Every structure is written in structure tokens, then in C-alpha cells.
């Protein structure tokens, strides 16, 4: 028969346990285990101790299964998703976390949309260091905060050792665009100007150098940056902008080929006008790479009517992400569907779609 003393002791113990459970969650594990992916207590402690603290915002804090976002009346939803598997995960100029935020924001931005929020999905390999996970999460949070685009929901999975390479991130971005704004390749016409917002090939070369496979050193940093501010300025100054795209894997060459393919028009690029940093030129020469095919993570290609090209360039140059913006070419009805580069002394060559992969796992 329980005495009053027994009951008091029991209550004290229960109260102690309850108090303990209310404490801020601390993750004692230093590596990720399969338990962290099971959806139970270990998962909970991973989320509570590592992931949620980085991202606190009203929508995320509701902890619903999905986020609810408000759209201004009359606007249309724009959504984009990308997975990030870059190796190494950290490189001069940024990390996988920065790419995950900026890359998806840029896809949204190139539709002329204002980004509203991001989702973040993580696939972790068993044995992944928690310390590195904290750094990646911190990078994502900082990149998202610095541009005011919250991470509103997410997911975490763990797979057995060997079933993934460390850590893969997927972000989906939601944005909105006013009715009437319609950036589309079908608006592109012969004679239109092709512009780029800055130097090309920086990201791919920076990652390649960071891989350490090559006994090359170069002062090249990834150009990863969110471009929605630049896009907003450009569209405000040049509402007649036809089309925007961020040239990631496959570089400016692939972006131009996609445009040529979807419009059935040709594109002429002027090799002498391409903005390329000297160390990138050097690295590409040594490795037999063409900067036109190398990935970028903070640049856009814009197509505008020819009489508005100067204004578009000037507007971009006035923004920190576009200081080296320049016109690089013209849309033409010659050679339909082909991208042709004119060399500084008048020779020409085709710049075709990429075959094979010069630099795998670049973003």
C-alpha cells in the first residue's frame, strides 16, 4: 500500500523527468545513425537540436506537415526544385548549403518571380558527422536569411553507409509572379540582344580546384549568389525583357543551345566579348576546357530587344551581382537552332550541346 511518502517521491521523480524532457534538446551523437532517420525519438532530437534551431520562422514553427503561404491577389505561383550533390561540399566562395538556397531562388527569379519560401530535404548517409551537418544547416540558414527567403518546411532521411555520398540536399522554391509578366522563349525574336550578368566559368573551376585532383592553384571563387534582386531591378527598368535563364550545369553554351532549340532560331556569340576571369582562362587552357561549358551559380543570361540592350546592361552593372554585365551576342534567323561563336578575327565555330560530362557533380 503506497504511503504518502511514496506518492510524494513518485511525484518528485515524475516532475524531475518532466522537467528534464522540457529542456532544450541536445544531440549527443557525433555521427548520424539509422536511428536518426526512423521518425522516432532520435529523428526528433536531430530535428529539434540541429535543424529547427537554425530556421526558426512563424511558418516552420507551426510544425505542420506542410507550409501554408499567402499569395498577393492576382499573382500566379512559380515553383522550382533542384537537388544538390556537389563534391567537395565546401569550396572557395561557398558550400553545398549556399548552392541549395541560391540555386533554387535563381530558377524562380528567372521566371520574374519573387521568392516566398523554400523547402529543404536532406538525405544523409549513415556515419555522416553531425558537426558537418550543423555547418551545412547553418550555411543554408544564413543564405536564406540574408535574402529574406525562409525555409518553411523540410524532411530528413538517413540511408545506410554506402547508399549515398555523405549528404544530398534538395530544395524546392515557391514564388509568385504578377499576372501579365510572362518571360518566355516564344517572345524571342531575330535581332534580340543576348546579355550575361558577369564572368563565366567561375563556379565550375572553383569546385574543380577544390577537388584537389590537380596540382593547380588558382584564385577562383564560386560565384554563388541569389539573383532575384538583380532580376527585379532589370525587369523594372526593362519590362520588355524577353527571357532569362541561369546557366548552371553545362554553362552559357547549354543555356544558349536550349534557347536556340526551343525557339528554332540561331544565336551568334562574340568570343571577344565573353567576360572570363584570367585565372579561369588559364585553368581552362591547361585542362582543355571551354569556359562556355563550365557551370555558373550566380549569373544569368538575358535576352532583350536590341534597342534596350544598353539600358539593360547599365541597370545590371548598377547592382552588386551584375557589375560585369555585358552583351555577348545576338539572336538571328541564320543557322536555325544552332549556336555559333565568332572568334576575334572572324573565324566561326559551332557551340553544340554538351556530350558527356567535363565536370561531374559540380552543383
Amino acid at each position: 500500500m503506497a504511503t504518502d511518502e511514496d506518492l510524494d517521491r513518485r511525484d518528485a521523480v515524475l516532475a524531475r523527468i518532466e522537467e528534464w524532457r522540457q529542456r532544450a534538446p541536445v544531440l549527443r551523437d557525433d555521427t548520424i545513425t539509422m536511428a536518426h532517420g526512423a521518425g522516432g525519438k532520435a529523428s526528433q532530437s536531430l530535428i529539434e537540436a540541429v535543424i529547427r534551431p537554425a530556421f526558426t520562422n512563424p511558418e516552420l514553427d507551426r510544425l505542420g506537415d506542410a507550409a501554408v503561404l499567402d499569395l498577393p491577389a492576382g499573382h500566379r505561383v512559380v515553383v522550382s526544385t533542384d537537388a544538390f550533390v556537389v563534391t567537395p561540399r565546401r569550396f572557395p566562395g561557398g558550400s553545398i548549403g549556399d548552392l541549395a538556397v541560391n540555386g533554387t531562388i535563381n530558377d524562380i527569379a528567372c521566371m520574374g518571380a519573387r521568392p516566398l519560401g523554400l523547402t529543404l530535404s536532406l538525405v544523409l548517409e549513415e556515419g555522416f558527422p553531425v558537426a558537418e551537418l550543423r555547418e551545412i544547416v547553418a550555411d543554408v540558414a544564413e543564405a536564406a536569411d540574408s535574402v529574406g527567403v525562409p525555409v518553411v518546411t523540410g524532411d530528413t532521411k538517413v540511408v545506410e553507409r554506402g547508399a549515398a555520398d555523405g549528404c544530398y540536399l534538395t530544395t524546392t522554391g515557391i514564388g509568385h509572379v504578377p499576372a501579365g509578366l510572362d518571360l518566355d522563349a516564344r517572345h524571342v525574336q531575330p535581332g534580340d540582344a543576348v546579355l550575361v550578368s558577369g564572368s563565366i566559368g567561375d563556379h565550375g573551376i572553383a569546385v574543380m580546384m577544390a577537388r584537389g585532383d590537380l596540382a593547380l592553384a588558382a584564385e577562383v571563387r564560386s560565384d554563388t549568389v541569389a539573383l532575384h534582386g538583380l532580376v527585379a531591378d532589370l525587369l523594372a527598368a526593362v519590362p520588355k525583357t524577353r527571357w532569362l535563364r541561369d546557366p548552371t550545369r553545362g554553362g552559357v553554351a547549354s543555356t544558349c543551345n536550349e534557347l536556340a532549340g526551343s525557339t528554332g532560331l540561331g544565336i551568334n556569340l562574340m568570343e571577344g566579348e565573353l567576360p572570363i576571369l584570367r585565372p579561369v582562362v588559364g585553368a581552362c587552357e591547361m585542362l582543355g576546357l571551354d569556359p562556355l561549358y563550365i557551370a555558373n551559380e550566380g549569373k544569368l543570361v538575358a535576352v532583350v530587344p536590341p534597342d534596350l540592350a544598353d539600358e539593360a546592361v547599365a541597370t545590371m552593372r548598377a547592382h552588386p551581382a551584375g557589375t560585369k554585365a555585358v552583351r555577348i551576342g545576338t539572336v538571328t534567323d541564320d543557322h536555325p537552332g544552332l549556336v555559333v561563336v565568332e572568334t576575334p578575327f572572324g573565324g566561326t565555330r559551332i557551340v553544340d550541346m554538351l556530350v558527356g560530362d567535363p565536370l561531374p557533380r559540380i552543383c
Partner: protein
Amino acid sequence: MKFVDEFRNPEAARELLRQIEALAAAQPARKFMEVCGGHTHAIYRHGIEALLPESIELVHGPGCPVCVIPMGRIDDAIAVASTEGVTLCCFGDMLRVPGGTSSLLEAKAHGADVRVVYSPLDALALAEREPALNVVFLAVGFETTAPSTAATLLQARERNVANFSVLSNHVTIVPPLKAILDSPGLDLDGFLGPGHVSTVIGTRPYEFVPQHYQRPLVTAGFEPVDILQGVLMLLQQLHDGRCEVENQYKRVVSESGSAVALQLLRDVFVVRPHFEWRGLGFIAQSALGLSPGFADWDAELRFDVPGLRVADPKACQCGEVLKGALRPWECKVFGTACTPETPIGTCMVSSEGACAAYYNYGRYSPRSRIPVRAD
């Protein structure tokens, strides 16, 4: 890299083109062959052919060491790569070269450990870092790359790295040049000699070309201005009635070549009695194998390679293209059954192959001409 700018200087190029036009106008049509994959690539990358007068044609010879590897040797490499415990290291453009039924890239997708390296020293470093791997370096190239393979083997022997070997497909430039010159119905007026092979072997080995075959040869560099100057020098010789070996690429090529590199080759390699060249058949004394002193590092001795001859697909006309007898677009399957994505033959696979260069860069080529200023 200032020199890159200088040798791509449009003003210099324009001046050379002006002089070329002047000389070409006073001569019959000329056909010059280059025997260096790097030249093929550079000519198309910079759109040089379209800048030359129409009476001058540049023909592409067997200068791409990847292109001349017969399918049977690729199958040998695939067999080695697919052996349990082997890590095969090779240069990037070897991955998609088609063998009899497969390629190294496909073998990799099926589980073979195939890795791209930029230098044989990287493969040796890998072997030293990971003693559990059985590392094989697939060595390809003319005398340009053979010295670095040789240097790597010397290091492997000195440091007694047992888990490393080399599968050698190195070839030499003079025998195929001679084979081309011996082909009946040869219709060439001169040669642009290889640039980087010549930094190793010098320019003396080419003396037989003017002496026995009465054709001028100019070794040239790879920048647009180099190539244009090389063409100009050939035209000048023909104009002057001279026939000799000249060196345009003086900044890196000397008459006697690199004594150090040549010694490395002598220390490590022996000339094979004969070797099969895709499209050219068996050529005597044209390839390098490891000398007996390096038997422990010779992958051909360490592994059981099939060593079979595989006939080229009937549709493939790589042989004719390699000899310069056929232009890429004259091949029946060019651009249709044979494309860079689905190559039938090696001329299309390697970025230095004539067909790949033409398809990737030059297939749309308005013959745009720089207006010649009447100075």
C-alpha cells in the same frame, strides 16, 4: 597567360591572312596535311579553315593517338579494367572510345573501377596511397606523352610500387607519316608538322620528308597565329622553290628536341616490331612497349589480355579519314549513324578526331573572309 593573347591577336592574324592570300593567288590550289590532333582541334576551334583562301585545303592526318587505337586494344583495356581488384586509370577521352562491343565508360557503369587522371603520376600516387588497389595506367599518346609515362615507371621502380602497372599504347609519329607518304595516289603539297611531339623529338626526324618525298614540312604551334604562320611558311617555300623542314614553333621546339625526354624513352621503352593502327593496318617499328627491365610493371605481362584483332564495323571509314583520303563529311555515316553521342569510329569519339572536330565546330561554316586591305 599573356602569350595566349599574343598568339590570338586579331591584327597579327589579319596581316598573316593578307600575306597568305597574296601568295595563294599566285599558286595553284594547295593541300596541306597536319598530323597532330591538337592542330585539328585548334583549326576547327578557331574557325581557321574558313579564313583561308578557298584554294588552300587543310587535310587531317592520323595525328590523334586515341583515334588510331584499334578496337581490339580497347577490348584489352576493358578486359583488364573488368578484372577483379583492378583500378584502371586513363585520360578522359579514352572513356567513350568504342571497342568491339563496349567501352570503358560502359564497363565503369557495370562496376569496373575506371578513373580519369590527368597524368600517369596521378595513377602512381593513387597506387601508393591505396595499396589494396591494383592500379593500371592506360598509356596513350605519341612521343608527347610517352616521356611522362617513362618518368612515372622510373619512379615506380625506384620506390618499388608493386601495385602499379602500365598498359602501353604509345605510338611514334614518323612511321605513320611515312605510311601516308607511301600511299598510292597521294595528293598533298606539304605538311604542318606536329607541335608538341616535336618538342620531344626535335625537327631532325622529319628531314626524310623533303629529302625522299620532296614535300616541305613546317612544325607549327597551336595558337591561331602559329597555324597561320605555318601555312604562310609552306606557301613561301613552294613559291621560292625550296623544299625543307622549317620550324615555326621556335619558342618550344628545337632542332634536336629534348635530350632529357629522349633519354627517358630510351631508358624505359623498346620499339615493338609492329603494331596495328586503326585504318592504316600493321606498321613496323611504330609503337612503344615496356623494356624487359620494367617487366614487373608491364600490364600486358601481368594480365591475360585477349589480344584479339577486331575488324572495324563495315560502315566505318575511319581509316580513309585518318589518311586524309576522305574528308569527314564524305564518310557515309558521318553525322547520322556516327555522331559524338553515338560514335561508330574513333575519329568521332576523341575531341581531337577530325570527324568530331568537324561535327562539333565546323559543320556550319560560312566561308567568312576577312576583307583584305589594299595597302
